[in-house]
């Protein structure tokens, strides 16, 4: 007989449990009961069925779903006896919801929680650039959604660079795969980040309701465009996205404009500019013509005014000269009346002695030589006596 210490026995039991339990193949399904979170770090709950109860332990950061008592879940992880207290529990790595009703209930709870944090506020929505040059596409490159997206982009646009991050879009590992791609894309200067997949059931699309994924999208510094094909209720990933599309095809349409429309717009702009320039030139020409004809009119008016002035000046001058001439003539006549010759003609004479005209007899001595001037000449004479 072999005696084990308690610790040895517990280790043996735990090793046996680990060897027996194939984590990748086994899960346990049951209804949640007694769910509680302590200090925001540890999650304790049990799952039960009609006859049994399994205590479960989980670290809080691994839980991405809002769990409530009564929900039916599937747990991934391993069973273990906690040596210190000898308590058997299931160490939960991931939780999956089973049953549409529970999925919807969980989704509602998570939506409410994120809503409170302002994740879906319209004011935080960013616009996508009109002409994205370089984008990150997060999708399964093996999916029809990927093919549809690329086909529509190629139909509509030219010159875009698409970095397609291949991810898992379904199953337990999908959220992590997508979160990693979102984080990797943040290192590049993309104009937009697109997350898309085709339609599926609520269960198939649960990755797009994963809290971690929604938080990663919310934290993206690149504007996000999310389009998941489905018939009912939108996923949280779509609600948190800056722009939401209904399908992968719609994603492509929302990302790039139709090049035909843009070519038309360019032509219209070009034509508009040419017309405006032509109008401006015509207007300038009209202004110049107007100015020229005004200058000509002004010159003509000036010339006319000048010629009128010249005529007036000539008239004035003529009148002035005439007046002057008349004045000179009357002065001449007036002066003529003082001419001695004019007096001599009337029978008067004057006497000159020694070159001087005599005006008194007192100056004449006997024998003085004098000269007598008459109308037609002069004669010399001598004074007989005084």
């Amino acid at each position, binding site marked *: 007989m072999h005696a084990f210490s308690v610790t040895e026995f517990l280790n043996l039991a735990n090793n046996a449990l680990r060897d027996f339990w194939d984590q990748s193949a086994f899960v346990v399904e049951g209804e949640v009961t007694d769910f509680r979170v302590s200090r925001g770090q540890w999650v304790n709950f049990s799952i039960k069925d009609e006859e049994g109860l399994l205590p479960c332990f989980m670290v809080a950061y691994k839980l991405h779903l809002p769990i409530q008592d009564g929900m039916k879940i599937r747990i991934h992880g391993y069973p273990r006896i906690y040596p210190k207290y000898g308590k058997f529990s299931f160490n939960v790595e991931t939780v999956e919801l089973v049953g549409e009703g529970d999925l919807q209930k969980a989704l509602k709870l998570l939506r409410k929680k994120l809503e409170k944090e302002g994740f879906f506020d319209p004011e935080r929505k960013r616009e996508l*650039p*009109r*002409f994205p*040059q370089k984008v990150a596409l997060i999708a399964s*490159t093996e999916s029809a959604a990927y093919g549809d997206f*690329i086909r529509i*982009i*190629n139909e509509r*646009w*030219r*010159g*875009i*660079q*698409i*970095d*397609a*991050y*291949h*991810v*898992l879009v379904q199953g337990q590992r999908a959220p992590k*795969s997508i979160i*990693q*791609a979102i984080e*990797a894309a943040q290192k590049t200067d993309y104009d937009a980040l697109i997350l898309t997949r085709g339609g599926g059931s609520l269960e198939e699309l649960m990755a797009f309701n994963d809290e971690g994924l929604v938080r990663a999208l919310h934290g993206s510094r690149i504007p996000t465009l999310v389009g998941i094909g489905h018939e009912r209720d939108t996923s949280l990933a779509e609600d948190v996205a800056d722009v939401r599309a209904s399908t992968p095809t719609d994603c492509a349409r929302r990302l790039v404009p139709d*090049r035909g429309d*843009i*070519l038309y717009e*360019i*032509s219209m*702009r*070009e034509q*508009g*500019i*040419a017309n*405006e*320039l032509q109008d*401006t*030139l015509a207007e*300038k020409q009209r202004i110049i013509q107007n100015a020229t004809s005004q200058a000509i009119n002004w010159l003509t008016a000036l010339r006319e005014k000048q010629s009128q002035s010249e005529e007036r000046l000539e008239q004035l001058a003529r009148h002035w000269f005439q007046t002057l001439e008349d004045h000179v003539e009357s002065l001449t006549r007036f002066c003529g009346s003082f001419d001695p010759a004019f007096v001599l003609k009337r029978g008067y004479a004057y006497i000159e002695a020694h070159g001087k005209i005599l005006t008194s007899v007192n100056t004449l001595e006997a024998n003085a030589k004098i000269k007598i001037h008459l109308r037609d000449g002069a004669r010399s004479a001598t004074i007989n006596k005084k």
Partner: protein
Amino acid sequence: MTTKKTKGDFASKFKELEDIAEWFEKGEPDIDKGMKKFERASALAKELKTVLEEAENKIQIIRSSNEE
């Protein structure tokens, strides 16, 4: 898929074309400036059309190292 690198940024060129159109719509009177802007607009329109008619889309698939 082969790639033909597009010269410059489509968005900024388109914006410049729009700005020129707006400048003309405002009815700026400067003919010299107008002629220069018209020439620039024609060049931009040509470049933009070339991108839309001749450039190709470049698609690159990135697989994460710890996938599958």
